[in-house]
Structure formats: C-alpha cells, structure tokens
C-alpha cells in the first residue's frame, strides 16, 4: 500500500519530465537532425535556419501530437468512468467513425483540396453528427446499454459508408492515397492552423479537471452517486460533451488514431489506482507523452503512420504490462 502510494505521487512529476524530454527529442529529430542546443537556439530564433525548422515545421507537429494524445486519453478515461467499464474507448459512441466518414467523403468529393480548413471541419461535423445521432436514437434516460447498442449500430453504419466510398470511388490516385493516409492517422505537415483547430482541446481539458471527484462516484454506480449528492444527469451530459469535443478535435487534426484512448488510461489506472482526481491530469500528460513517443518511433522507422505505430508499440507494451501485474 505504501509503495503504491509512493508510485502514484511520483507519477505526475515523472511523466511531466518524460514529456519535456520527448518534446526536446521530437523537436530535434527529423530529416535534419538538430542537437538540443540547436533546438534551443531555434526556439529563441537566434539561428534563422534552426528557427525555421523548429517554428514552422516541428513545433506545430509536436503541439498537435501532444494535444491529440492528451485528448484521446482523457476522452477514454471519461468513457470508462461513464460506462463503468475499463474496456470502454473514445470511439464507442461513433465519434471516431463519424469523423472518419466526414473526412473521407470530403476528400472523395474533392472539397478537402480547396482549403486547409475544410478537411478538419468535415471531420468535426461528422463526429458531432454521429454522436448526436447516437444520443437521439438512444434517447430515454440515455443510460448505459441503450447508448452502447446505438453506438455499435452507428459505428457499423459509418464504417460501411467509409468502405463504400473507398471501394466505389474511382477518383484520382492522390485522393485515394489521401483517404488511406487519413484513415491511418498521422502528424505529417501539421501547421499552426491545425494547432488553432485543436486549441479548444485545452479548454475541454480544463473543464474536465474539477470533475475527477464526481467521476469517482459515477464510476461506482449512477444511482448510488445520485443518492450521495451528485447531479448525475448533468454530470453525464457534461462528460459526454467533453469526451465528444476531445475526440472530435483530435480526429479532425490527426485522422484516426486508435488504441491511445483505451490503453493510456488503463495502464495509468493499473499503476496508480482508480482515483480520477489523479487520473485526469495523468492521462492528459501521459497521453501526450505516449503519442509523441510513437511519432518519434514512427519517424525513425522511415515515416510509418501514427495510427499504425500507436497499435504496433502500444499493444505489445500493454501485454507486457499485463503480464507484470501480480
């Protein structure tokens, strides 16, 4: 017990330090290697070439990656508390597949090439459309099982839309490649515009911060939580809205990135226990660190897509972690 307590106390500082190291590594690595000193010079704009690389190319990518990782992990944590199931993931209610369908349709119709803003916007519209549809279809009380079933059905429908576009659409080769790239998720060529689109993630994370305690109570039963003084209906609405915003924005700027929202909260819960007041900040920082690390690995491996790496690195790590448990 003492040991577990010490681990959970040290986890946030340790992960924060890890994140800083990963940011420095991510800013230094790429086609042109920069030493930590050069990164520093670039950040302070003392060297024009280093400054261009750091500010124009790598910093937006790093910032987007961090926000995406934090958003997906926090969203997964929220869904796990909401559904009282540690296997829940952000995509359960169709946010991810809705975003994918929106983006794929936008690319196939050629809208995506007209403006940089269009693709993310299409993804956001798809994501919110899908979640609203699930909530409306489930309606009454919008609780547990009914929501899940509506989500499963809509996920299947949206996956079919995406597959249909992929199989029937015989557009130019670049568009097909763009669709495939998008579906595999990635942080290539992210710009400050993408950072701007993802910025509300920080606001959603800030809203989530004080909800850790009520999430504790909700995760042990909705009726029980209500009898202890939690306004469960309001809390559920707020949590669903936050989880949707987080996942929708992450999907909009980085495409479909799987597995992050499932394993990061899960691993952290196994490491420090189920207290959500601890887990909310930890998943934000831990998720950011995880996605940055995956992006660095992906670039070192010659440009493997982020969505591939998160599963390729995440799954074995998760299995190893499970085996270490008592």
């Amino acid at each position, binding site marked *: *017990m003492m040991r577990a307590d010490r681990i959970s106390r040290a986890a946030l500082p340790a992960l924060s330090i890890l994140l800083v190291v990963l940011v420095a590594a991510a800013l230094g690595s790429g086609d042109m290697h920069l030493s930590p000193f050069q990164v520093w010079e670039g950040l302070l704009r003392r060297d024009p070439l280093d400054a261009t690389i750091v500010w124009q190319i790598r910093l937006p990518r790093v910032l987007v990656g961090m926000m995406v990782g934090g958003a997906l992990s926090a969203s997964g944590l929220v869904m796990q508390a909401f559904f*009282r*199931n*540690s296997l829940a993931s952000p995509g359960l209610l169709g946010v991810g597949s809705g975003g994918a369908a929106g983006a794929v349709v936008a690319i196939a119709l050629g809208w995506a090439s007209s403006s940089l803003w269009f693709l993310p916007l299409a993804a956001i519209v798809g994501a919110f459309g899908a979640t609203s549809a699930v909530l409306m279809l489930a309606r009454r009380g919008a609780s547990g099982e009914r929501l899940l079933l509506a989500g499963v059905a809509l996920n299947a429908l949206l996956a079919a839309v995406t597959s249909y576009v992929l199989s029937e659409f015989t557009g130019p080769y670049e568009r097909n490649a763009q669709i495939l790239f998008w579906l595999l998720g990635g942080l290539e060529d992210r710009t400050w515009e993408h950072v701007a689109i993802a910025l509300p993630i920080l606001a959603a994370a800030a809203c989530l911060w004080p909800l850790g*305690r*009520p999430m*504790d*109570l909700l*995760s*042990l*039963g909705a*009726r*029980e939580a*209500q*009898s*202890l*003084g*939690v*306004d469960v209906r309001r809390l559920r609405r707020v949590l669903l809205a936050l989880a949707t915003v987080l996942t929708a924005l992450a999907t909009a700027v980085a495409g479909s990135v799987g597995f992050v929202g499932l394993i990061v909260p899960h691993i952290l*819960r196994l490491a420090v*226990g*189920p*207290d959500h007041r601890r887990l909310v900040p930890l998943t934000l920082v831990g998720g950011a660190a995880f996605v940055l690390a995956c992006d660095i690995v992906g670039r070192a491996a010659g440009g493997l897509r982020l969505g591939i790496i998160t599963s390729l690195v995440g799954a074995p790590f998760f299995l190893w972690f499970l085996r270490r448990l008592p």
Partner: protein
Amino acid sequence: MTILRLAETTVPGRLESVSLDVPRGSLVGLVGPNGSGKSTLLQVAAGILPPSECVSWEGRPLGGIPMLERGRCAAWVPQEALFEFGFSVRSVVAQGRFANGDDGRGVDEALAALDLTGLAARPVNRLSGGERARVLLARALVTGAPLQLWDEPLAALDPRHALEVVVLARGLAGRGSTVVFSLHDLRVAHRLDLVAVLHERRLRAFGPPAEILSPSLLLEVFGVRAHEAPGLNLELP
C-alpha cells in the same frame, strides 16, 4: 414529526398509489413478496426514481432540495453493487462525505461499526457479496444523513453481521435518525418499531408489527401459516 412522506405515489407497473408517513426516529421494516415494489418504493423515497413531486423530506418537497443537499439529508443503499474499479474499501466509504466537502469525518468509526477495519485497504472489486454489502452500509452511515433507506441490507450477511446491522439500525433510531429497510425475515420485522407491508404494488398495511403482522394477513400476503413455537433464536453474546 414526519421525516418522510409519500403521497399517492405511483410508478407505472411497479407501485400503485402508495401513501406513507414515516415518523422521525423510527425503525421501519418494509416487507412483501418478491416483486411487490419494495425496491421501487425505497428508490422513489430516496429521490433516485421519479416521481419526486410525491415525496417530501421533513416537510420539504423533494423537488425543492438541491442535489448536493439531498446527499446530506438521505442515504440509500442498493440491494447489490458490482464494483468495476478497484477503489480501496476506505476510499469508497469516504465517498459518503461527498456532499459534506469530502471532509473524511467519521470514516474510521463507520469502518469499525461494520467490522471493516481489517479490510480498509482491500480493493472493493475483490470482496465477497456480504463484504460489499457492509461497505455500502458503511458509506451510507458516514453520510450522517438523518434518513437512511436500505434495500435488503441483511440479505447477503452472515447471522452475526446481520444481527450487528439490526443493532446498529436500532442505535441510529435511538439517536433520532430514521431507518427504513426492506427485509424478508418476518421474525426480524416483528422486532422493529413499524412495519409496512407491500402486496401487489400497493401498501397493504402500515403500523406496529404486533398489530399488523396478523396470521390472517401473513396468509393472505405471503401465503404462509404463522404460529408461535419454540425454535432457534439468535442474539449477540
């Protein structure tokens, strides 16, 4: 003084036109065959199930009491609970202080009262059914709420712990709290202050057990023939 009032409460298919005035400081048993509406009645009384407009606590309509304050006025214990996450027994009991700013007061006393001190550090998802039931009772106790609504708190408990819980409820009532709990053991019900009998979703009778639990009512409601006879009697040493 009435602490809990239900007025013409109907939950479609589960409860029909139940009116009930529970006096403060009483120990009330809720009996009735399976499916007679005991759990529904307790949940409506606790403000978890609608309609809340039929319910008032200490004369205040439930709808006018803010959520957080409700957590200080009444505590509800579910019939059974499944815990997905491995919170420690102590931290689950401490959740009972949520509506009091999580001040942690009375947690050790509640753990001791339910014989959980030795299990305080254990994850709740690795407990037996009876141990889980005691954790939920301790959490309700720690709220300090003057109205305690327990749904079959004795069902999962061994004889010793069941007796202790009845003695605990008696003590709470003696200090001015009100405990309403559902149960199936009519011999225990016979020793309470008041008994409410539910039958086919309606309140069949409400009053002191010696008057209410007559052989004719027991035969009609439960289909059992009652007679007093020497048998096994259990009490705390």
